[in-house]
């Protein structure tokens, strides 16, 4: 005889990632490491911004560099003699808490004050995956088009710090950086929005101040 049964599962895949993310944050807190998830499209300037912050911030910095297949970004950070773990996602378009958990095992956390977790270049998929960072910083460059913010609402809704980058070339690429900033503020009134250029160093001190303020609670 066969019978038919209904089985309740109620297993949320996102919740599973969130639990791991919380565990990551506990590990970071135990070693007093403040972590920033750095999000943004390919070419937005995430790696260059982190490089600039490594050079300018008077803190012990570590980096997890997420990339699909290469170690290019990880190699760029290594030249600054900071602890770096390169993470290759293979076919995946985002980092997740599980990958970050393993990367944390390979970092000397007791020697790090501030950890940048550079996500894979993508404005869509990383949104769904908390990593355990304390804040999310999204970098968007004017060369992506000044409608990029309004076209990707969730990532801006979810970020604590929005960096509108490469404003020195806004005119050349016919982009209105003020529109991008106001779109970000409209989507997320709590976010801090900074217009920057890594070439002229516009906004860099402000970014540093904001990160340090978050670190000091």
């Amino acid at each position, binding site marked *: *005889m*066969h*019978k*038919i*049964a*209904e*089985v*309740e*599962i*109620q*297993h*949320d*895949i*996102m*919740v*599973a990632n969130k639990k791991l993310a919380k565990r990551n944050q506990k590990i970071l807190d135990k070693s007093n490491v403040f972590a920033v998830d750095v999000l943004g499209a390919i070419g937005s300037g995430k790696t260059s911004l982190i490089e600039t912050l490594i050079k300018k911030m008077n803190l012990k910095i570590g980096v997890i560099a997420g990339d699909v297949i290469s170690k290019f970004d990880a190699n760029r950070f290594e030249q600054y003699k900071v602890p770096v773990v390169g993470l290759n996602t293979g*076919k*995946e*378009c*985002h980092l997740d808490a599980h990958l970050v958990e393993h990367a944390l095992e390979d970092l000397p956390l007791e020697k790090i004050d501030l950890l940048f977790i550079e996500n894979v270049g993508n404005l*869509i*998929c990383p*949104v*769904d995956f908390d990593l355990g960072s304390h804040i999310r910083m999204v970098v968007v460059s004017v060369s992506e088009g000044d409608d990029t913010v*309004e076209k990707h*609402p*969730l990532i801006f*809704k979810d970020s604590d710090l929005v960096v509108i980058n490469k404003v020195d070339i806004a005119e050349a690429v016919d982009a209105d950086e003020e529109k991008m900033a106001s779109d970000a503020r*409209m*989507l997320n*009134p*709590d976010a801090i929005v900074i217009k920057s250029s890594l070439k002229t160093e516009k906004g860099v001190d402000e970014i540093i101040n904001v990160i340090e303020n978050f670190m000091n609670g």
Partner: protein
Amino acid sequence: MHELSMADAMVKTILDAAEKNQAEKILEATIEIGKLTMLNPDQLKFLLEVLTEDTLLEDSEIHIEEIPVEIECKSCDYKGLTNVDDSDHYLIIVKCPQCGERDLKVTSGRECNVKNIKIEKSD
């Protein structure tokens, strides 16, 4: 495109539950997807079909249910469903339907839940 990894995790979750419950056949499975997740239901469905080949789920009916977006407004304390307007893709996350203010928190609509399965098993 993370539909593949999500579909893979869903299939594993369902097959695990089926095995634990000594299922001989899985008749139906229900998955709930929040409207705000970055998952495309059609792609997800296609990948589920591919991934379930030669498994207990091969001939099962997989239902994908959408979970609506709910918000909490920090200005007027409204809690509940928000406006859904497919012509304005971000209205739902930026405006309270009660007071029109923008300072709100999304409380529901980002789920990716394997809800239940209907199985056939021996007595």
